[in-house]
């Protein structure tokens, strides 16, 4: 079949628009489409189906093999992975993305497999944050280390880490208050929280999970950059993918910073947490 280059251009433009509408951002969308355009020019791709498949494959290879490590969570209860002590996760991110809810879901995942889980109430600022976490500990069967009145977050995390060690918990999940990556004072406080965990338990935190709200646009990259620089991020949690947003802005995060997606939030309930499935993610982008 003879297929004109203009037709290819039309297909490529439509696909670029589809990427943009999925929050890839114009730069990343253009870069991905341009690479495919090269393949069209070289004659490697002959039909709109070829083009779509090539585009899908290039996005898949981007998200499936990030340079910054595997999408497996660091967790080995009682094993040497955490030096025999509790595994520690620090959960961070901007306001309202789903950190506290994700902790509740994560706790449930591990308690339902027999692990002993402790939650640390590291959000000492927001109204009813402690009560919200306490209710999640009840729902998930985890214990909770509450903040004492007027305590600073790094002190709460330090105490929780010591308790996790002393009482032989398998996993410690540390909540932190939402904060904008543009606030130097709050980013410094987060760095201090991380150091506090490390001094209580050498090797901790074994994961620093950045929660990214799936409805967010291109700002995801700025968030990931700043949180990465301040506290070091080992994995991403992409939430609210049960909504209409496709979370495409995360692709630029993986492409430019190499941080792997480890978890996906798909609802507000205890069970609504999934391990990242690259193929499913890409399928949702190109239905």
């Amino acid at each position, binding site marked *: 079949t003879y297929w004109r280059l203009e037709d290819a251009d039309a297909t490529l433009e439509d696909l670029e628009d589809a990427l943009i509408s999925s929050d890839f951002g114009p730069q990343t969308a253009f870069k991905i489409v341009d690479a495919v355009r090269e393949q069209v020019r070289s004659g490697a791709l002959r039909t709109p189906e070829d083009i779509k498949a090539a585009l899908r494959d290039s996005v898949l290879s981007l998200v499936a093999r990030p340079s910054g490590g595997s999408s497996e969570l660091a967790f080995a209860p009682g094993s040497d992975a955490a030096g025999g002590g509790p595994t520690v996760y620090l959960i961070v991110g901007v*306001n309202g993305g789903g950190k506290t809810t994700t902790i509740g879901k994560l706790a449930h995942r591990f308690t339902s497999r027999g692990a002993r889980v402790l939650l640390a109430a590291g959000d000492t600022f927001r*109204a009813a944050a402690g009560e919200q976490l306490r*209710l999640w500990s009840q729902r998930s069967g985890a214990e909770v280390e509450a903040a004492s009145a007027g305590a600073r977050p790094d002190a709460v995390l330090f105490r929780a880490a010591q308790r996790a060690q002393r009482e032989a918990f398998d996993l410690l999940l540390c909540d932190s208050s939402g904060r904008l990556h*543009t606030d130097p004072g709050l980013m410094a406080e987060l760095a201090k929280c991380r150091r506090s965990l490390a001094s209580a338990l050498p090797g901790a935190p074994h994961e620093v999970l950045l929660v990214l709200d799936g409805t967010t*646009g291109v700002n995801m990259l700025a968030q990931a950059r700043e949180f990465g620089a301040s506290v070091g991020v080992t994995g991403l949690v992409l939430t609210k993918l049960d909504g209409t947003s496709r979370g495409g802005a995360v692709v630029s995060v993986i492409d430019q910073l190499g941080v792997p997606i480890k978890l996906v939030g798909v609802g507000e309930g205890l069970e609504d947490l999934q391990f990242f499935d690259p193929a499913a993610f890409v399928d949702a982008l190109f239905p």
Partner: protein
Amino acid sequence: TLSQSLNKAWGMVQKDARLTPENMKAPLREIRRALLEADVPLMVVRPFIARVEGRALGAAVTKGVSPQQQLVKIVYDELVILMGGKQVSLNVPEGGEPQVILMAGLQGTGKTTTAAKLAAFLKNKGGRVMLVATDVYRPAAIEQLVVLGGQVGVPVFERGLNVPPADIAREGVALAKEEGMDTVIIDTAGRLQIDATLMQELQEISSAVRPTDTLLVVDAMTGQEAAGLVKTFNTTVPLTGAIVTKLDGDARGGAALAVKEVSGCPIKFVGMGEKTDALELFYPDRMASRILA
């Protein structure tokens, strides 16, 4: 900045005295890219660029103003026009009835915090304000509003977790009228616009209390879906305005354009921080500058 990238685009064009369809191609592509980079939804960018082009082609030549300066000015002016031109405040009902303000939006956008901020704002202007807690789903949501109400010195009406939200709202507004309140602000649970059950619930709350303002609370960092979600919320409960939150960050806030373009509703306030005094009036020209930055 937009003017920097436009400089680059114009650099490829000779020093023309007027804007033509040909010499505008590259600059319009740059403007499109800049708006998308600011999270303005694609379905809002397209008609906007068409309006800019139409206005630019019809524009008279101004002595001493380069075509590119003219284009930047047109883009800025169109943004301000789109955003609503001037500041719009809350509706004030007739005959001494209280203002009834209904907060709505996706999960985590800042509704509960903003309800308290709005209460503080109106209380400081001398009004008697009451808050109503109808989020019976999120753990400790009622508690959160009660604590915030305490912080700003405003009473919070709640009926626990087992009364339907529409009934809580109805009872709260009835009590507010009885007590001679000037304003009653109803906080609601975050919901997906594609959740039929919860969108129906929002409709029921609205029918039960007949709000004088229904405000969509939108996160400044919201991406391309802003247009779709505004549309769905607006067809479910007619919106009268919006509040854009977390503008103290560095998200450009393209979703703000979507609000006005899709619903025709003005943005009435912006959230500029986590504290209960971090609520400001919305200024269209400031938003235009932020999007073009």
